[in-house]
């Protein structure tokens, strides 16, 4: 057990360091972008048409953007050490509050979309893997290729056109009710399914052709029973890793879906923060997303160790 704890401690340490480096890179990149930072912030605050050089100057003074970059960076690191991510230059709200609000929406929709994608992909992938080259395999393959080649916004527009504009079963945009969640979650799920079906199918095909499966069949188990007892766990290992990666990808936000469905998620926040050059929000988001990514991949590793304790034995040794 101490081996597991050691792995966790090491990985959390790595995650924190990675997150801090990521946030610092964000700081460098934002400042390396061309254009006057204060003017961009001013335009985002008062609107494009009302922005004047005077507004930009006032914001530059008020927010201390005229100080040397190294001083600004030092202050950010100092605040970070005290657990303070600062205030948004756009809304004036604490960055933690902004991130928490948008992250709650992204997590909600991301989790639903991600789980929905596996509700679709697992039965299809496993069935396809049982009969490689069969009808189901060929159909799911075509489906996966089609979905993978369609940009997400086209899938979203297609679903909106069908279910919201033609059939009028669901609202075309919004975020406040369960009905509003269906189309964005389905759009997200379909874009994930495109890549998870082949992974599941290949994992199943590979496990079924393994020697231990032949042995299980030889000792008299039906194909289904053999797969249930000996195949599922082995096939789950690559699938779990891949699913965790997809989830980590999802929690960054999904800009296109959020914009199309007017959904206030993290991706939308981050894109707007980038356009407005809202440095504290960009850095805070970089920090949190980097950390969350690391935590999800840690959870995936732990899950894999749980499914396949051989790795743990190696770590103990």
């Amino acid at each position, binding site marked *: 057990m101490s081996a597991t704890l050691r792995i966790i401690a090491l990985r959390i340490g790595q995650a924190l360091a990675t997150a801090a480096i990521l946030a610092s890179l964000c700081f460098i990149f934002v400042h390396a972008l061309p*254009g006057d930072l204060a003017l961009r912030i001013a335009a985002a605050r008062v609107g494009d048409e009302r922005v004047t050089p005077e507004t930009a100057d006032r914001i530059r003074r008020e927010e201390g953007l005229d100080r040397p970059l190294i001083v600004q960076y030092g202050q950010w690191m100092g605040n970070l050490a005290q657990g303070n991510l600062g205030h948004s230059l756009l809304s004036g709200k604490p960055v933690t509050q902004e991130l928490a609000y948008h992250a709650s929406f992204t997590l909600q929709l991301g989790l639903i979309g991600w789980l929905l994608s596996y509700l679709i992909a697992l039965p299809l992938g496993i069935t396809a893997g049982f009969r490689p080259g069969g009808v189901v395999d060929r159909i799911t393959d075509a489906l996966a290729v089609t979905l993978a080649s369609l940009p997400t916004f086209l899938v979203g527009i297609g679903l909106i056109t069908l279910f919201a504009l033609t059939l009028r079963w669901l609202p075309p945009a919004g975020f406040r009710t369960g009905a509003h969640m269906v189309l964005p979650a389905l759009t997200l799920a379909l874009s994930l399914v495109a890549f998870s079906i082949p992974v599941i199918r290949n994992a199943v095909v590979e496990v079924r052709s393994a020697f231990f499966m032949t042995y299980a069949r030889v000792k008299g188990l039906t194909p289904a029973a053999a797969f249930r007892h000996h195949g599922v766990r082995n096939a789950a290992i690559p699938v779990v890793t891949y699913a965790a990666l997809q989830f980590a990808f999802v929690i960054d936000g999904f800009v296109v879906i959020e914009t199309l469905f007017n959904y206030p998620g993290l991706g939308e926040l981050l894109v707007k923060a980038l356009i407005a050059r809202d440095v504290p929000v960009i850095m805070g988001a970089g920090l949190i997303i980097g950390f969350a990514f690391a935590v999800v991949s840690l959870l995936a590793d732990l899950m894999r160790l749980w499914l396949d304790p051989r790795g743990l034995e190696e770590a103990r040794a």
Partner: protein
Amino acid sequence: MTEKLSITRRSALALSASAVAAAALPSQSFAQEAGVLRVASPWEWTSNEPTDTGYIMARMQIAETLVMVEPDGKLVGGIAESWTVSDDRLTWRFKVRAGVVFHDGTPVTAEAAAASLRRSLAGESMQQIPVDSLSTEGDTLILKTKTPFSHLPAVLADFASVILAPTSWGADGKVSRVIATGPFRITAIDGKTVLELERFDRYWGEKPKVARVRYTAIPNGDTRTNVAIAGDQDIIFTTVPAATPRIDAAGQMKVESLTIPRVRAMAFNSGLPQFADVRVRRAINMAIDRKGIASAILRHPGSAATQLLPAAVPAWHDASLPAHPFDVVGANALLDQAGWTRGTDGVRTKDGVRLAATMLTISNRPELTVMGTAMQAQFKAIGMELSVEPVPSAAIPSAIQAGTMQMTMFARTYVNVPEVIATIIPDFTRERSTWGTLNWPGRDRVKRLTDEYVQSFDDARKAVLRREILKIIQDEVPVAAVAWFEHTVAINKRVKGLVIDPFETRYMLHKVSLG
């Protein structure tokens, strides 16, 4: 051991599946709620500060200014019932209307209004007022200016000067709650996207007919179109003009449009050798097929601009001014006369300078880039080479300030302050304007006229000055309006009584009822 583990895995899965089911359960129907007027526009509630979101507060009629503007452009009393100016034109007295209360029930006093105004005077939009002092006397707010400033009431109608209660500001000097005086008050704010409003029963003026209003910000134009087709809102402001036929055909909402004093204009850096000669600027202006652009790109032939501003602002529209001509032959003759000769590649040159420029357009106004490429083709006919570069909008004032702007096409409203002079001054009288001219020698002449205009209280003289300013701009083409804007509003069939305000200061929701 293995068996026990597998049960844990199964229950973990079952738990996560039920969590999904719980999250997906609809908490309420998406269908329209009785008595709630649903209003959408592109603008997000980015903060509580009047300098930032005052326009949403004013448009949604949450907050009000001392002076207000009617849809016909007439200035009327808002929180100030009436006003007077002293004989020396330096002391303005605004009498605060009796019986006006803030949304928390406290009365609006002259002191409270002055305290709120002091905060907005620090903002840039108010900085043009040559304030000497701001004081109160009983129910009267007294504003003294250092020099006569005839359009002070119009500037006080600017939404940045909405009056909030003293309790709106927190200890940090920021607005923590919006406590204002309008016919609607905020009951809940959901992120940047949704504002829940209710009718304020102690409102001093005409009481709204609807009890509740929900404001939703939908920044993406395609999403607004989808929502309009589905009829999922009652009023959607600023729909995409090209989507009008689709929205109308869906039958849920009807789009109405009105030409407003918002302009898609082209501007030159008049200091560049290729644009310093007024004949060149005129020739380029003559090469623009405005009618073609208005009908093919903007789908609204009436939006082709004949001069800077449309007739929606009668004071600043001179019907006697000759319209911008479209005359390619004349344009070529003018360039020949100015000494620009065509090279082998068809582009004119003079003294080694090519008649070429990069035109900056705003990337989040997609029609500007399309208009730019149309003009690229039209300018080829007169031997000019144009490249079009879409940039974020703030990059344009930035390029003008830096002096690097060669040409630009932007969208600009001239009625942020309902007296156009307040926008003419920063755009046409400075070496480096905010949105518009750069290095234009004519600015000094316009400045003399605007200086006189600001100090003049003689309406007849001001009308003469306005005509002179418009004529100089039309003749010298430092900036040329290409197309005016159509303010498009999608209206649900159940909405009755909506009035569209060309000044966009108020959405006039108090007049709306739901059928």
